[in-house]
Structures are given as structure tokens and as C-alpha cells.
């Protein structure tokens, strides 16, 4: 039974296949590094974070994907996964600001439930052109990686986020009652 937070939190399973970490990933919102599996408020993640990729070799390029697998709600993830950010050609030792932003950062705004927001890092073999997906919802990280031959992920981390004022749980709808 793996104790890896990514496995326990079902990120490995819902979004990714099991992988071996071979790179480092640091996500920094407002000068604070995010701990894997911690909870952040929507107000703290409005603007895009600085994603640092520590290392040695500036020639290695990475692709960063940020998805929400719990869209629209964790108990009913019909729009899994919702793509929030896509940046390619990030050189090692630098950060996401040096890459090529294919899909701009969208602020997490969960309405129902507590969502996971997952950052996935892929190592690129070459500098490649990645086409912008037509839409953000129902994105599939696995398929995306297969399509562009990115191979298995090299690093991943996630944080939780719910509505600013809480009550991501059952709320009364006039039509459908308590859901």
C-alpha cells in the first residue's frame, strides 16, 4: 500500500498512471511554496504561480500541465479534467515564465465540493510544437502525453481548493432539491 500522497489522494489513478519521479517541481503562489496535498483558497490562487524546475542542465525542456480532475464536482466529475494551464519548452533550472504558454492560466473557481488541482511535469525530448486544444474541459492528460510522445510524467504535485466561503457540500437548488 503506497504512502505516496499522490497515490493516497488518488491523483495517480484518476489523472496519471504510476510513475517514478525523476525531476523536481516547486509551485510557488505569492512567494509561498505549496505543500503537496495542502489546501488553498481561490483568492490565493487567482494569479498564476511561479513553477520552478530545479536542476543542472538548461538544455532539458519540460512541459507543464495543470488540470482539475474534479470538475464540476468530485462526486460527479463529468468534465474531468478541466485544463487550467499549459506551458511547454520550460528549460531546466528556470521557471514557467521562460516557457511557451499554449493555454493561459485560468484561476481555479470551484463551485461544488473540494477539487484537486494537479500540476504535471513532462520531460520533452525535443523542442516541439504543441497545438492548443480546442477547449479546456474533458482534457485527458494521459492521451495528451501519448499524442505528443511525452512519455511518463517526471514529477507531479497537487493542492486542494474549495469555494472561498466554504460550503462546497450540499446546497439547496430550487429545482433539484438538496444536491
Amino acid at each position, binding site marked *: 500500500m503506497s504512502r505516496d*500522497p499522490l497515490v*493516497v489522494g*488518488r491523483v495517480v489513478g484518476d489523472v496519471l498512471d504510476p510513475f517514478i519521479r525523476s525531476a523536481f517541481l516547486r509551485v510557488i503562489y505569492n512567494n509561498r511554496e505549496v505543500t503537496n*496535498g*495542502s489546501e488553498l483558497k481561490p483568492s490565493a490562487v487567482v494569479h498564476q504561480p511561479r513553477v520552478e524546475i530545479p536542476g543542472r542542465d538548461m538544455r532539458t525542456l519540460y512541459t507543464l500541465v495543470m488540470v482539475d480532475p474534479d470538475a464540476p464536482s468530485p*462526486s460527479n466529475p463529468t468534465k474531468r479534467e478541466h485544463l487550467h494551464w499549459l506551458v511547454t519548452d520550460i528549460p531546466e533550472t528556470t521557471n514557467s515564465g521562460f516557457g511557451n504558454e499554449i493555454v493561459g492560466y485560468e484561476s481555479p473557481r470551484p463551485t461544488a*465540493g473540494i477539487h484537486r488541482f494537479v500540476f504535471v511535469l513532462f520531460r520533452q525530448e525535443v523542442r516541439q510544437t504543441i497545438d492548443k486544444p480546442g477547449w479546456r474541459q474533458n482534457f485527458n492528460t494521459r492521451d495528451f502525453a501519448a499524442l505528443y510522445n511525452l512519455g511518463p510524467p517526471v514529477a507531479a504535485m497537487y493542492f486542494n481548493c474549495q469555494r472561498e466561503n466554504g460550503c462546497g457540500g450540499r446546497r439547496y437548488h430550487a429545482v433539484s432539491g438538496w444536491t
Partner: protein
Amino acid sequence: MWSSGLDNHSNNKTNNIDNGNSGHGGGSRIISSSSSSRSSPSSTSSILLRTPRRRTMEEVWKDINLTSLHHERRFAPLPEPHHHHHHHHHRAMILQDFLSGPCFTVSRANAAVEDIPLPPPPPLLPPTALSLSSGRELQYLGGGGGGGGGSALMNGHSRSSSNSNGSRVHGQANNNDNNARSGPFMSPSFSDAVIGPSSPAGFFSFCSKKRVMPEGPGIGGDRRYKRMIKNRESAARSRARKQAYTNELELEVAHLLEENAKLKKQLEELRLAMDAQLPNRIALKRSSSAPF
């Protein structure tokens, strides 16, 4: 409509139970009293009862229902009555109960039930563990008994038979020894309302907490069941979330402690190296830095 029929059925049954009937003899007498309280099918069955040797499917079904109460196992599982169209709802419910009754629960009853609500066929336990596992089987059947509809039906039945609860308990007293093994099993078929004498009250309350308690048959119970499932999933996600965060913190703590130890060691080594080299550096040297 079927619930009212059941009420009559059960009430009459309990009257006869108090008279100390058991097995077939009691069965036939009970049938006669209960069938007389019925409307359309009673005529056929009452006629046939005069010649007790010819038994209709209805009687047989009643017998099963009753004897399952009394834990008589002499019946082989009967074929699905093609007469069941008479009172469809009643039959369907009884069949369900029958299927969850002793003949069928034997294999299930031996199971150790860990998961709710819809586990795959559970592993077998030795018969000695029956009395313990049967309570948990309550949960299993409650959760998995044909899904929401099934549990709704079963629980609907429980509402109607709740009146006869007390007397039914009494009635089973004389069959207590026979019931010892299968007493708790009856609870699933008649849901929470019936307390077998061999299952302790604490047991029952434990089991009932986990059971679905819908308002009645039909969509009310189904919605509640789905809600319960959703709630369970949500709880599981919540636990996973908490556990993942805790694991991450533990990993980080371990990592930081290790780094700290390494850095301290490095510091010590550097200090030692510095102390050793220090005398050489004290002397100031004059060096020329002029361009010419």
C-alpha cells in the same frame, strides 16, 4: 396495498404462533386464518385447504414465508410461482425475502462482511463465526439486497410488519433452539423491525445504524440510498485527502531532518577545516597591484 395484506397476514400468523404452532401443522392453520382475511385469492386457497393434500403455489409460498420465520428448512427452494401474477407485488416482495431468507443466506451468512454497500461475493467463514457475522450480514443485505429498490421493498415491508414485532418475537420463542443458528438471518428478510431473540439488542442497534432507513418503498428509499452512497464516497475522499496531506508532511519532515543533519555535519567539517588552516591566513602579504 400489499402492505395491508401483509399486516393481516402477519397478525393472523402471530395469533397462531401464540398457540404454540410450529412447522407444517401451524403453517396450514395459519394459512387458513390468513387466507380467510384475503380478498380474491382466498377463495381458491380456502377451497383447496379442505383437501390439505392438494397445495397450491400460493399455499406453498405462504408456507415458505412462515416457515422461514420458524426456520424450518424442509422446503427445497420452490420454483418461481407462475401463479404469482395474482398478487404481483406481494410475491415479488416475498420472493425477495425468501431469497434473503435462511436457505439462501447460508452461503452469504458465512461471509465476513467488511465493506458496505455492494461488495463482491465475500469469503467464507467457519460456521462458528455465524452469530457474529450475521449481524454484519444485515448490513451487507441492506446495502446490496437488489440495490435501492430491493432494500426499499424490504424496508417497506418492515414498516408494515412493525406492528406485529412484539408478538412475533414471542412466537419464535418455542423455536428458539432451532433458531439459534439462523435467527439473526431473519432480520434481513424482515428488516429492522424484527428482532430475533438470539440476536442481542446491542447487536441490532449496531446493525441498524448501518442500514438504510427509507421512508417507504419506491423512489424515496432509492434517493436516500443514493445519497448514502454519495456520502460514503465523499467521506472516503475526505479521509484520503487527510491521509495524503499527513503523508506528505511526514515525508517532508523526514526529508528536512535529514537535510538538517547533513548540513550540520557539513558545517562542523568546514569549521574544523577552517581552524586547521587558519594560521596560514593570518599573515598579511603585500602584493603589487599597480599596472606598471
